[in-house]
């Protein structure tokens, strides 16, 4: 589903990603862990198409068989790629339901489907809000405006549920959440797992992986994946800490 080959990206001439290779197949859950500054969020943003990053010509990313790197962000989303933001922006004046209806209809139109009318969309939204257990009043609140940190993250998961992507990238969705909020968010994600939907969980903390069990764990360090393994790798990392990584990796250089 997703093939990342030798992905190199920089911002303002400073290299951040130094050659990432990753293959994600349908239904898989990959966790990407790493210390602060290792390039985790950059990786997520580059996949979603953020224009602030310069991606090297030699890099290649294909998603569902299409060349992702030449595609504007909105087309990636329409193709089925979703990014849950680490810091979701506040949009005063635009309600969640208006925002999400526009998003869903852009995707539907791009796939040759008819637009949903207000009634059908409202039904669908209500169903998703129940599924992931968010307050029905979310629908008429302005997008993330005045939301608590936990509410913002939950709203990202609501958007994920409504947009039904093929690949969802969760960028530090667990950061800043207390255990109750983490549980709600994780339960939402687990309900959305399916055979044809893959996840990439970008996280700093092993704790998230107690709730969402990954198939693969990758460790990102200084812009490269330096370890890959099963879920037990996360536990090893938890036990030894990122310092262990710094010592072993920096010793190689």
């Amino acid at each position: 589903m997703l093939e990342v080959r030798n992905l190199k990206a920089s911002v303002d001439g400073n290299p951040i990603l130094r050659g990432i290779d990753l293959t994600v197949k349908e239904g898989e859950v990959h966790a990407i862990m790493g210390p602060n500054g290792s390039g985790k969020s950059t990786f997520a943003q580059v996949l979603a198409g953020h224009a602030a990053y310069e991606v090297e010509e030699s890099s290649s990313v294909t998603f569902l068989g299409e060349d992702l790197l030449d595609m504007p962000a909105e087309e990636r989303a329409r193709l089925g790629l979703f990014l849950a933001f680490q810091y979701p922006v506040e949009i005063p004046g635009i309600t969640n339901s208006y925002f999400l209806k526009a998003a869903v209809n852009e995707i539907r139109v791009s796939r040759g489907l008819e637009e949903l009318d207000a009634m059908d969309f409202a039904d669908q939204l209500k169903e998703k809000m129940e599924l992931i257990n968010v307050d029905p009043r979310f629908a008429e609140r302005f997008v993330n405006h005045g939301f608590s940190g936990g509410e913002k993250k939950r709203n990202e998961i609501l958007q994920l549920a409504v947009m039904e992507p093929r690949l969802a990238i969760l960028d530090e969705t667990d950061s800043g959440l207390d255990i109750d909020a983490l549980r709600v968010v994780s339960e939402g994600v687990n309900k959305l797992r399916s055979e044809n939907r893959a996840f990439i969980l970008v996280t700093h903390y092993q704790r998230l992986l107690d709730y969402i069990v990954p198939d693969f764990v990758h460790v990102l360090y200084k812009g490269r994946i330096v370890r890959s393994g099963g879920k037990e790798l996360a536990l090893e990392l938890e036990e030894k800490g990122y310092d262990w990584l710094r010592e072993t990796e920096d010793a190689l250089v």
Partner: protein
Amino acid sequence: MSEIPQSKVRDAYLALTAARPNGNTPAWVQALHAEGESLLRETELPHTRMEEWRQTNINAINERTFAPLTDAPDHGVDADSVAALRFVNGVCSESVFVNGFHVPGLGSRKDLPAKVAVTGLCNAQLGDHAETVKAHLNHHLGARNAYTALNTAFLQDGAFVHVPRNTVVETPIHLLFLATPALEDCSAAIRNLIVLEEGAQATIILSFAGNAGAAAYLSNVVDEISLGANASLTLCKLVREGAQGNHLATTEVHQHRDSRFHAHTFSMEGAVIRNQLCVNLAGEGAECKLNGLYLNDGNRLIDNALQLTHTVPRCSSRIAYKGILDGKSKSVFTGKVNVLRDAQKTDSNQISNNLMLSDTAAIDAKPQLEIYADDVKCTHGATVGSSPPEIIFYFRSRGIDEATARGMLTYGFAGEIVDEMNIDAVHAPLSAYIYDKYSPKI
């Protein structure tokens, strides 16, 4: 560039007063005309060396004479042409004015209590309301500028609304002012007088609409509004002049104790629009809320000049204006608040937010607080900006392209002012208008 001989233009206006018909005009109205004339004689046309007009260049209006229409012309307006320009959509009492003159046959009274007057000012001067008109007309207007003096010098018609003591008018009153091609190269001196007696309540929509014509015209408007003790007025003003239409308006509001005045001013279309809104909070406990939205684009000029005077203690004022600025348009917002020495416990705040859609639009937004009392709470703020790239990226990551995102954001920005106005007959058409204006065109 040579100096524009604006004094010649003013002299030309003064010369035209000779043509003003005085047949049925009561002597006291003739006296007002003379007052307006003498004020005009000693007042320069507004120019940018005057403090209040520093950012508002109306030379295009000043350098020619827009002869005031002095007679109700044969305008050929019928119910269909009214419907085409109505915009407002819902049950309202309606009075129609064509080029400044009341056309009784085109109006309708819907659920209006019998004692409530909604009529032409010309008619009111002569009939049962003569005493009320005499008591208020020109009493609320200060010496504002040459165009308000011109309005008084040519004062003939406009709207007269009188709501008696403790009378509540539930249905909005729609005053529709149409500019037809007959107004081209001319001006309409529109004079409106709105009097709400003690405890009265009403919602009034002042709606200006023009047939797009090839030639310029001028709507020269003065509104005088008196709110009795504990009276409550919601005023919605919609400016949709023709593409070459100019709109210079001064609204003077006098508030007695415990009265409430909520104004919603929407500046939509017209070459030059200036809404001067002057409110005197003259009785304790009076409250005003002044909201506005200006949608500027092309080469147009929109100026909202607010002048608020807190004369007595314990009054509150809220000002919230927003502008959406596109093209090479020029916008001016001035929020001048005077808190006089006696006006202790004043609670005043104002905010002006501006969304830039182009790099070539210009805005001059300034709050001006002059506070002479020492126990007051006054705040102000102004912002000018465009939608940050992080917000645009968020939309795009949800499949919404940049043009659509900007349209949605603009609509949302305007919505905060539109939604504050609870007049159903205006809310839906206005929302639709804004949505259409800023949605990306396919």
